[in-house]
């Protein structure tokens, strides 16, 4: 039995079983103003899984991720990462924000950004050293960007910037990766490169969660889905949860029946 077995329909998490899962969320509510962006969401991400968070635009997918990591303040909710508070499990987690959330005109080279991922291993009041640079270069190699190490980040294409972000996360050498829209606005080659790195991470036993918007690739890339539209609609393995019925409920009328048919779902 997996450590975070779900009782499907009732929306209830078994408290004991989910204890040391990479992420356990209970009753997460985040609100900007007086309209909740995420309302009372429960979720449990089992170790070694690859989960897509899916939902329409403005449905609170990114907010769910940020609320879970405390990047935005939450109105209520309990979060456990590997059974602990986030502060105690921080070095086991790597977070990749949306590419568009930063100012790429910042005076930094590609290598500088990747070095930021080694922040936790450098130590207070110290600076990055040669061995850190070596580590960072290896991470760049894994995403196929080692030739660009000295390039200013603003000169890169969108896909290249996303790869740099992924390299920075790899440098963190975490057990649990949370990525916010890693495939948004990237070229096909980059998308393939990112997927293969993520699958590598999974094969090494690490856990991956992505906010994802392309329904046509869900089944190919991921093994679990979390459907969110302000509330949690459904969560579970792709085969049983990524169904036409659940998608219809998640997307409402916005996702026409014909589109769902094209996905060839059960």
């Amino acid at each position, binding site marked *: 039995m997996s450590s975070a077995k779900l009782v499907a329909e009732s929306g209830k998490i078994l408290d004991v079983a989910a204890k040391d899962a990479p992420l356990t969320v209970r009753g997460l509510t985040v609100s900007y103003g007086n309209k909740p962006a995420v309302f009372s969401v429960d979720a449990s991400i089992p170790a070694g899984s690859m989960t897509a968070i899916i939902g329409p635009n403005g449905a609170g997918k990114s907010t769910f991720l*940020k609320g879970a*990591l*405390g*990047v935005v303040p939450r109105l209520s909710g309990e979060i456990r990462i590997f059974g602990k508070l986030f*502060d105690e499990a*921080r070095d086991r*987690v790597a*977070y*990749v*924000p949306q*590419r*568009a*959330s*930063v*100012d*790429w*005109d*910042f*005076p*930094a*080279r590609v290598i*500088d*950004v990747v070095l*930021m991922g080694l*922040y*936790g291993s*450098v130590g207070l*009041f*110290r*600076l*990055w050293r040669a061995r850190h640079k070596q580590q960072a270069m290896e991470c760049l190699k894994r995403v196929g960007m080692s030739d660009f190490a000295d390039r*200013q980040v*603003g*000169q*890169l*294409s*969108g896909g290249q*910037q996303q790869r740099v972000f992924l390299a*920075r996360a790899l440098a*963190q050498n975490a057990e649990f990766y949370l990525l916010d829209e890693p495939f948004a*606005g990237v070229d096909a080659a980059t998308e393939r490169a990112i997927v293969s790195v993520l699958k590598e991470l999974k094969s090494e036993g690490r856990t991956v969660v992505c906010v994802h918007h392309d329904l046509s690739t869900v089944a190919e890339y991921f093994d679990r889905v979390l459907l969110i539209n302000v509330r949690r609609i459904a969560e579970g393995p792709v085969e049983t949860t990524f169904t036409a019925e659940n998608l219809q409920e998640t997307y409402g009328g916005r996702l026409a029946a014909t589109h769902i048919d094209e996905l060839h779902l059960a």
Partner: protein
Amino acid sequence: MINDLITALGAEFVQLSLTPIVIGILAAIACALPGNFLLLRRQALIGDAISHVVLPGIVAAFLVTGTITAVPMMLGAGGAAIVAVVMIEIVKRLGRVEPGAAMGLVFTTLFAAGVLFLEITDTSSVHIDVQHALLGNLESLIWFDAEGWGSLIDPKALATLPPQLPRLAIVLVVIALFIFLFWKELKISTFDAAFAEAVGIRTRTLGFALVVATAIAAVAAFDAVGSIIVIAMFVCPPASARLMTNQLGRQVGWSVIFATISAILGYVFAGYGPGWFGSPYAVSAAGMIATISGLILMLTCLFGPQRKRIGQQAET
């Protein structure tokens, strides 16, 4: 040739010009250092706001203590800067307005309150006025007891240095240390606040610390050189430096160079420049330093190797 230089830089120079120049340089660098990060965080105008509230801070300190000694004045000014920053934050949240409007509202109000208090209380016995707060008195910070370069190693003469000089030197060391020790954190949180938060950097605390450092620089510098240079040095040298390089470390280096050049040339042109046109009067050194920093910015805007925004920008 060298002898000429030594004469030009003789005893009189040490007595009248050395200390103002050094103080100008220290003040310029102390402001330019945090200015680099303010620039990249789109907070360049925080420096503007803070330097406007220095005046009400001094007035408040005078109203409380009844004196205008350095320590209460600096505390008052520092306190006012922090009050201003907190007020800006409140107005921003409460009114959900853009930071520029919140800043404009807060600093004009505090400045107005400062001027009003100055007018309605009897401060005629002491020397605080609006002009002093704006312009400083760089020219008057001379070293009476200096008799030449030898005085630099004479403890008795050194004891009579204008107090602004050691004060600014300490402030500069503190600010440089802050930036050096928290270089990683400042760099990461300025580039990507969400990531910084996730790896455990307290971005809000750090942002506040940066503003406090800015306030300390503004307060220490304004007494010697006035608010104008403070604003100019927060913005112009870092902005020029950004157009020279794409690496943060080098940007900071360039900003120090530009700040130093502005201070030296500005002082020299203000003190000696009018003489070249046959006028016996000097012009405002503070104004001239700001002007030079603006000319440097103009040059880098026209010729700086990294002046252009290039490559693909992240779409919204």
